[in-house]
């Protein structure tokens, strides 16, 4: 049972990291990114491909994070000129196009085969209790990123971003280079998402394009909104609750007899949809609301 819980906890940690990344973009800067899974995938694939080609992880990991951030900056410079609901569909489309790219450009990404044999860091040293080591690694990463992001939030950079989120025109009038700040926030969030992807890839030791479906982005959003958007603590709480819900419902089939197979999967997803709708109507600020007023 312990190893099972360790595994779940590791995956929750990875998702929590991804949610934190999204929170930089949305919670801090007010940018709608419906393609969160894209940078998660970029981080995962970049690191996996580099590592499998022989690059030492010490170089592969920062390179992957940097690449995810750079790709995000590129997309941001093009897409951030758009209004909120336009940006949403653009990022959604980007997420889907990226997945198609991963699936089709097999010469680079190994296509539907996926990347196998991704090396796991320090495997030789901890072969006995490797899963526990990895869980600790992930938890440390989450903790460090959380602390760092909290500091960013309180920093001048963070304050400007929040000002931009509240009212862009005012911030611009005050002389802030709004566009540049937004691109930076977007890139930062993507870098964190990329880190989550790296930890994901090296944990599973195998990745393939269908692990990065558009609906994963929606689940991250749900986690964020559920926990309390704008809020790093909320991001963590939301991830834990959401994955707990999804994983826990696996055991529902043992209790409710007709709820198997497609029905269980459909019911789970319906639950996600219902929670999303109810949240948006009743409590858009989530479980742990941010201090100032929400919607």
């Amino acid at each position, binding site marked *: *049972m*312990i*190893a*099972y*819980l360790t*595994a*779940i906890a590791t*995956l929750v940690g990875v998702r929590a990291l991804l949610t934190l990344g999204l929170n930089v973009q949305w919670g801090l800067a007010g940018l709608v990114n419906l393609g969160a899974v894209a940078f998660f995938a970029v981080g995962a694939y970049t690191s996996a491909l580099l590592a499998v080609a022989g690059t030492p992880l010490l170089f592969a990991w920062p390179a992957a994070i940097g690449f995810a951030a750079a790709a995000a900056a590129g997309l941001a410079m093009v897409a951030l000129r758009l209004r909120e609901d336009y940006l949403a569909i653009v990022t959604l489309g980007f997420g889907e196009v990226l997945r*198609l790219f991963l*699936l*089709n450009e*097999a010469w680079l990404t190994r*296509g*539907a*085969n*996926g990347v*196998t*044999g991704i090396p796991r860091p320090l495997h030789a040293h901890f072969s006995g209790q490797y899963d526990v080591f990895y869980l600790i690694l992930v938890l440390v990463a989450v903790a460090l990123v959380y602390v760092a992001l909290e500091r960013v939030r309180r920093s001048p950079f963070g304050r400007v971003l929040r000002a931009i989120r509240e009212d862009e025109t005012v911030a611009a009038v005050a002389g802030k280079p709004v566009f540049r700040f937004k691109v930076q926030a977007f890139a930062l969030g993507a870098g964190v998402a990329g880190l989550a992807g790296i930890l994901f890839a090296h944990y*599973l*030791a*195998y*990745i*393939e394009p*269908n*692990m990065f479906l558009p609906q994963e982005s929606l689940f991250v959003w749900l986690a964020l909104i559920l926990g309390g958007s704008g809020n790093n603590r909320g991001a963590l*709480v939301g991830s*834990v*609750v959401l994955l*707990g819900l999804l*994983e826990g419902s*696996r055991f529902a089939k043992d209790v409710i007899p007709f709820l*198997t*197979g*497609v029905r*269980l*999967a459909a019911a789970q997803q319906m639950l996600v949809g219902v929670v999303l709708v109810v949240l948006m109507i009743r409590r858009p600020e989530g479980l742990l609301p941010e201090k100032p007023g929400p919607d």
Partner: protein
Amino acid sequence: MTTMTRRELLKTGTTAGLVLGAPTLISAQSKEPIPIGTLCPLTGAGGSYGPDMQRAVVAVVERINKAGGINGRPVQLFHEDDQTNAEAGVRAARKLIDVNKVVAIVSTWASAVTLAVRPLCVEAKVFVIGVSGADAVTQGDHKGYIARTQPNTNLQGRMYGKFAATKKEWKRIAYMGLQTPYARSFGDAFSGVVKAAGATITDDLIYEDKKPSYRSEVTRVLATNPDLIMLGGYTPDSVVMVKDIYKTGYKGAILAPSFAVNAKFLEGVGPEVAEGVWHMDRAPLFDSPAYKEFLAAVPGGDTGPYAPQAWDQITLVALALAAGRGEVSGTVIKDNLRTVSNPPGTAVYSFAEGAKLLGEGKKVNYEGASGSCDFDQIGDILSAPFIVQQVRKGKSERVMIVNP
């Protein structure tokens, strides 16, 4: 939330400590059930195949337990849905291995899932046997903990090519493969053989899964005027594809795998559209008692090639454990698999038969419902004959056998 997890952890921690302390080898004296897991796609792309595979395994286990179990111990099955998704498969496998403590996982389907759970199982010394076809599944270092009852895609491609080459009127051939980990390897193996026989490959297209219409793909391929379209997909996409091809008025031939052109396919496209479609697959041992028993026990299970394989997989695992004489673990299975499945030995067609002979110290050779089930060193099935059929007036008729 955190308090609950801590409490839960504390509780399970103590029990885990006791259980983890005990070795996985349990003495022959105990009547402890033997845990075995199934990891099938009950939802997702493979969702139409999983349920039958699971049914087949359940039917075999009922028979095993009725016959007295494995060395007196009953088998206890644990079922999980991998959702045809590698990550979900990993989480499900973790549960089977760590919570249910299975010694083997049978009837995995998607190559992506098998590839993803392979490292975990090898590390936990849990034996995995499934139907995944991608070449990578049996490659690399798996220490013998993996096997499959489905011929690898390279072999499959070559056999289809061999058949296509026998039809001299098929000079221009187009390949349309569903996007899977093995579409490329199949296509290349197939093309290699037909090209060597003098045909031309006019187009080679990998198409996306789950599209409601393939009109653009079909338009492109038909522009090259093929005599034959080699279709490598599953039932859902093949139904759409073949209908789209029919709608364009194409008068040439179509060759597809039998697992795609099954009863569901015929229902989906109707006899008029399906008329003349060629299909082939590894020939099950139709006359084998195992196949007959399988059909009787799993009605409707022959609509795909996977349920008979699942039947064989669980039987093989059980026989390998029976040969282990009391010890029960994934390692025992891996060590005894080939001794119960490959010649030499008396041919047996069910667990009951085989267990009896093993009990008498004799050597057995299981011949299954899906084939002779003889494995090579890396876990691949040794080559097997293929059977070619054609749909005529709404029914599939056997036309010929292609030998390797």
